[in-house]
């Protein structure tokens, strides 16, 4: 175990580099920078505000705030006071506020949240939604009354104490609060920093939301605790204007940037060539693809687009990560081309084996090798290890694992056995490299054939008339046939019947021609129909339920 907590680490930073730039926040058309001293002084104001509330060490404090200074400082203010902060996803444009508030109520009731920090605009809505529950609601506007005492921490927190919760996107049902101790987080920072060769000259640039592990750990906690500069923008801002990320890299000579796979396509296709101009990305030593299945084509598209901006090809790296291991489990090697494995489709589907082929096959990009102090094994349904190139569930054991799920001992016992965490992700090992093939419960079994829904979704992304990344594939059990039918729901832009039929025809043809199966249901739906998890993944079970209710059993 490390001897230091996150609180000790901050104390050291304030002694050794108080005037170093800590974080630059990009706002609309502007930006401002805080030094370590300034940032933690602002965090201290939140700590002071929390002191006025009736809280005890270890109490859960949830932040319901827009991306920006308040949520960052509020998080550290709570952590440095010995409370356990957790960031709740912010209400997005497409969400219904009522269901949003009710999901907060559910979390507060289940997890015994003791305080919420929010903004005035949400105060009333939250008070109503939380009526009858014993929780304190604090607003950012109350800060003015709490005084400007600089950070000083005399509380006694040990490495085994919980530092914060990451709420893992439970797509259906209740969110799971992943408990991470100070020791686990400090271990992750040490091991992952080694894997990516982190140095004090690095500059992390990020648009990622902070309620998700990649944004929270890679795009917030690691840079701050490691004493390196972080340049941060809001995900809402980035989505509307994707080039702000690249312009920030250019301006601040960014060196590290984590992105989910879709962002590579988004950046490559949404920014016109005419806007590239003098854009210089040569400072970047790693764009790290993480948190959704990685596609070689996305990387190719990205390189084709940005090579002219000085993007160096070996800068494309990959990582396999999850909140339950704080963040990274594996990381691809620095300065080397990525390992790509082309395997036979049939053996992958029918035999759960990854058989290399030189012909047409499924192309998988490696997520790299385990980081230090992290072991991986691939197991079958009986949780017994399988051999190299056999697909099974990925299990891991490390010194940065979760302590358990907050207030959910039964769930913790299901997935943590004898020190191993069973991830529910499917994959295989080959030459020490980890390849992810899908998720255990996502698997569709059609007439004995195992179908990974992502494989079908990937076939559909570039069909004209449907929204890329907004097609969901899942299995629907067919009682008559005793097996699953494949259902595809895709968001389409047109109301014209002929065009709709043409889109459906194309979807069906692609599935039939590229897989061993035929889709039973192809349903076009309106924009925003498809449900995604808070981390942007297709919420397959939720979409399945919605599809069944709307189209198969209407009126039930």
């Amino acid at each position, binding site marked *: 175990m490390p001897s230091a907590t996150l609180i000790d680490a901050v104390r050291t930073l304030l002694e050794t580099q108080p005037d170093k730039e800590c974080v630059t926040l990009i706002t609309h058309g502007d930006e401002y920078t805080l030094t370590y001293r300034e940032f933690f002084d602002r965090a201290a104001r939140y700590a002071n505000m929390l002191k006025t509330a009736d809280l005890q060490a270890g109490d859960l404090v949830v932040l319901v705030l827009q991306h920006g200074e308040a949520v960052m400082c509020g998080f550290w203010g709570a952590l440095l006071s010995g409370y356990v902060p957790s960031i709740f996803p912010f209400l997005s444009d497409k969400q219904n506020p009522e269901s949003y508030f009710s999901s907060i109520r559910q979390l507060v009731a289940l997890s015994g949240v003791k305080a919420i920090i929010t903004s005035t605009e949400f105060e009333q809505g939250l008070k109503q939604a939380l009526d009858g529950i014993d929780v304190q609601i604090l607003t950012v506007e109350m800060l003015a009354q709490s005084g400007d005492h600089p950070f000083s921490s005399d509380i006694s927190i040990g490495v085994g104490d919980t530092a914060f919760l990451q709420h893992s996107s439970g797509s259906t049902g209740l969110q799971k609060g992943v408990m991470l101790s100070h020791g686990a987080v400090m271990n992750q920072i040490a091991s992952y920093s080694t894997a990516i060769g982190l140095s004090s000259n690095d500059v992390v640039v990020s648009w990622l939301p902070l309620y998700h592990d990649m944004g929270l750990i890679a795009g917030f906690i690691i840079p701050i605790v490691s004493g390196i500069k972080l340049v941060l923008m809001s995900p809402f801002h980035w989505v509307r204007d994707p080039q702000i990320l690249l312009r920030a890299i250019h301006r601040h000579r960014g060196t590290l940037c984590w992105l989910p796979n879709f962002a590579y396509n988004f950046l490559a296709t949404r920014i016109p060539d005419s806007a590239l101009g003098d854009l210089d990305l040569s400072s970047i030593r790693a764009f790290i693809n993480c948190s959704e299945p990685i596609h070689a084509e996305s990387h190719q598209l990205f390189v084709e687009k940005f090579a002219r901006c000085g993007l160096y090809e070996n800068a494309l790296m990959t990582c396999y990560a999850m909140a339950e291991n704080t963040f990274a489990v594996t990381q691809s090697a620095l300065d080397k081309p990525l390992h790509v494995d082309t395997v036979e489709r049939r053996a992958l589907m029918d035999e759960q084996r990854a058989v290399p082929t030189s012909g047409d096959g499924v192309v998988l990009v490696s997520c790299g090798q385990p980081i230090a102090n992290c072991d991986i094994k691939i197991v079958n349904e009986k949780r017994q290890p399988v051999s190299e190139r056999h697909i099974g569930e990925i299990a891991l054991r490390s010194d940065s694992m979760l302590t358990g799920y907050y207030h959910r001992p039964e769930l913790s016992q299901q997935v943590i056995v004898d020190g191993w965490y069973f991830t529910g992700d499917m994959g295989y090992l080959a030459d020490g490299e980890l390849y992810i093939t899908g998720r255990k419960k996502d698997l569709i079994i059609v007439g004995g054939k195992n179908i990974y829904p992502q494989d079908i979704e990937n076939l559909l992304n570039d069909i004209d008339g449907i929204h890329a990344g907004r097609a969901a594939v899942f299995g629907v059990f067919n009682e008559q046939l005793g097996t699953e039918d494949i259902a595809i729901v895709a968001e389409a832009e047109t109301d014209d019947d*002929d065009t709709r*039929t043409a889109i459906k025809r194309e*979807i069906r043809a692609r599935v*039939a*021609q590229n897989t061993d199966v*035929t889709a*039973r*249901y192809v349903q076009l739906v309106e924009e925003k129909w498809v449900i995604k998890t808070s981390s942007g993944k297709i919420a397959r079970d939720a979409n399945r339920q919605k599809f069944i209710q709307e189209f198969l059993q209407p009126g039930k």
Partner: protein
Amino acid sequence: MKDQLRQYIVNHMIHDASYKLKDDEALITGGLVDSFSLVELAVYIEQEFGVHFDDPELTAENMDTLNKIVSNIEAKQ
């Protein structure tokens, strides 16, 4: 007959009444009907039109479009 088959396919096999199935559209290679469903279609044809197809006849070559199915049914009547 063709329209009756068309209705059966869109309503009972792909469950999509709004689908505008063309006479010469590929059913099997086009991903509307798989091998399980083709058997089901043959059963329906036998019930409705009194024409039996043996298993070896149930191929993409013989059954891939409405036009082909109808001409095969007519040839057997």
